[in-house]
């Protein structure tokens, strides 16, 4: 059969992920020697030794690279029992052999010999093919949230309830909305950035005033959440007469500066929807380098109402530990949304 299982598009990224990082992979102390890797691919090692090396591959990027290099160069040996993998060929060959033997026996049997068929019935010559196992993958198990996730959901719900209660409490005094921009829970403390839009009457005209607040919460001993502090109003300064395109370019410039200065808060000011995972990743990438110079060139900006897409070319000069400098070029697609406070980045594509 020799069918090749091509990587499905949905699996190509898995293969790429497994092969990635080889450039930075440290060989481990228990890495197999190159000769053993070569011999494993050539099937000159015992099965146990081969399996040991294959087991090692899944956790060692350095050996993954070595294995792939050997697989590219070393011709895969012709399978000693190639016929083993092809049951149909095996059965066909056996049938042909039996027929040939039968014909030979019929033609050349000694005179007077009794026909075997007259003595006993002919046995079933060929074994039935093994029932092929069900190829359908087993159904995915129902994924229930873990206790930790359930607790996090409960905490997030409790804090949002608290904010809603605050909103209802003061709603009677005027018309306003609160958007929770960012809610981060860290154990028994939490912070939430909220964006408040008040509609006020100034000289008979309805005007919208926007402000942001950062609220800090703490979980009490009884398990309920309370607000412990709130930052003063931070009016958002957006030039009134700035065009959308120049406003987006300004946001990109801030994004560039935030990376160069490793300023997470500045980064969040233009990318407020930064999740905890993304923030951790950003901090890790900042920690991994000594410095970085970023030059972003805006290739194209497409504005469609309150959303926009910018295609940019990015040139990074990264200074790693040991003052080694690396340059890297890449292109990015940045998605924007026009919020009450101005344009913000909603997605950083690759």
């Amino acid at each position, binding site marked *: 059969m020799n069918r090749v299982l091509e990587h499905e598009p949905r699996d190509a990224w898995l293969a790429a992920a497994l092969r990635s990082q080889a450039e*930075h992979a440290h060989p481990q102390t228990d890495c197999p020697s190159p000769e053993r890797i070569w011999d494993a691919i050539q099937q000159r090692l015992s099965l146990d030794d081969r399996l040991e090396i294959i087991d090692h591959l899944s956790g060692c990027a350095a050996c993954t690279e070595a294995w792939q290099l050997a697989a590219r160069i070393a011709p895969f040996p012709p399978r000693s029992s190639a016929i083993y993998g092809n049951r149909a060929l095996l059965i066909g060959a056996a049938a042909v052999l039996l027929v040939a033997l039968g014909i030979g026996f019929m033609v050349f049997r000694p005179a007077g010999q009794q026909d075997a068929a007259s003595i006993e019935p002919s046995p079933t010559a060929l074994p039935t093919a093994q029932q092929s196992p069900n190829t359908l993958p087993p159904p995915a198990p129902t994924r229930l949230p873990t206790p930790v996730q359930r607790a996090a959901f409960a905490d997030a719900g409790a804090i949002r309830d608290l904010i809603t209660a605050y909103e209802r409490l003061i709603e009677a005094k005027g018309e306003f909305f609160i958007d929770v921009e960012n809610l981060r829970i860290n154990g028994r403390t939490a912070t939430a950035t909220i964006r408040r839009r008040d509609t006020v009457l100034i000289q008979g005209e309805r005007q919208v005033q926007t402000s942001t607040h950062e609220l800090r919460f703490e979980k009490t001993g009884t398990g309920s959440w309370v607000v412990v502090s709130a930052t003063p109003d931070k009016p958002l300064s957006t030039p009134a007469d700035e065009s959308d395109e120049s406003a987006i370019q300004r946001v990109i410039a801030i994004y560039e500066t935030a990376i160069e200065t490793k300023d997470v808060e500045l980064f969040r000011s233009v990318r407020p929807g930064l999740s905890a995972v993304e923030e951790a990743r950003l901090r890790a990438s900042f920690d991994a380098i000594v410095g970085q110079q970023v030059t972003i060139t805006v290739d194209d900006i497409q504005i469609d109402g309150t959303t926009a897409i910018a295609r940019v070319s990015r040139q990074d000069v990264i200074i790693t530990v040991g003052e080694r400098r690396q*340059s890297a070029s890449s292109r990015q697609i940045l998605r924007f949304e026009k919020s009450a406070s101005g344009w913000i980045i909603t997605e950083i594509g690759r």
Partner: protein
Amino acid sequence: MPDALGRRVPSLSVLSAESVTADSTSTADLEIAQLRIDVARAVRSVCPRWLAEQADDLSQIAVSRILDRLRTTEGQLELSRGYLYRTAYSVVIDEIRRRRRRREIAMDSDVVFQSNEANPERHTFSREVRDAVAGCLRRLVASRRRAVTLHLLGHSVREISALLECRSKQAENLVYRGLNDLRVCLTRHGVHQ
């Protein structure tokens, strides 16, 4: 004696003789010269592009290893093409590992290296994904883990069944079921395409 690929292979037994006669010296020189050419070709085909500048040095190391081996085996080593490539591969991988362990840094810090990685964020992201894939692979049943690892490294079902010594159908099932398990695990850890 021809090798498995039908190529004439010298035994170079003359090189290991305790006393090399005058008649055999020119033959040995010719054979060593040919060996150097063959080894250099093998090293160049194995060497990654970023290590290409070291190909000559690596070829020299490979030739030395082969000559040492010839001496220890008293010239009874058959220099098949496979053996030359195996030696070249071994030398190149040793060099790659040595460099990765030492993390060599150029003396001139103004030199800017061109990197394939787009930027540190992307590098960190890809490392996270790789760690997640490796972590989920470790959690798979051993037979499925091996099949999936080989599949993701680009091996065909035939090669997987040969390496794992199982039937093709079984290898195919192991890959399919292992991939399914892997996807479920990655989804659970919030990693998706």
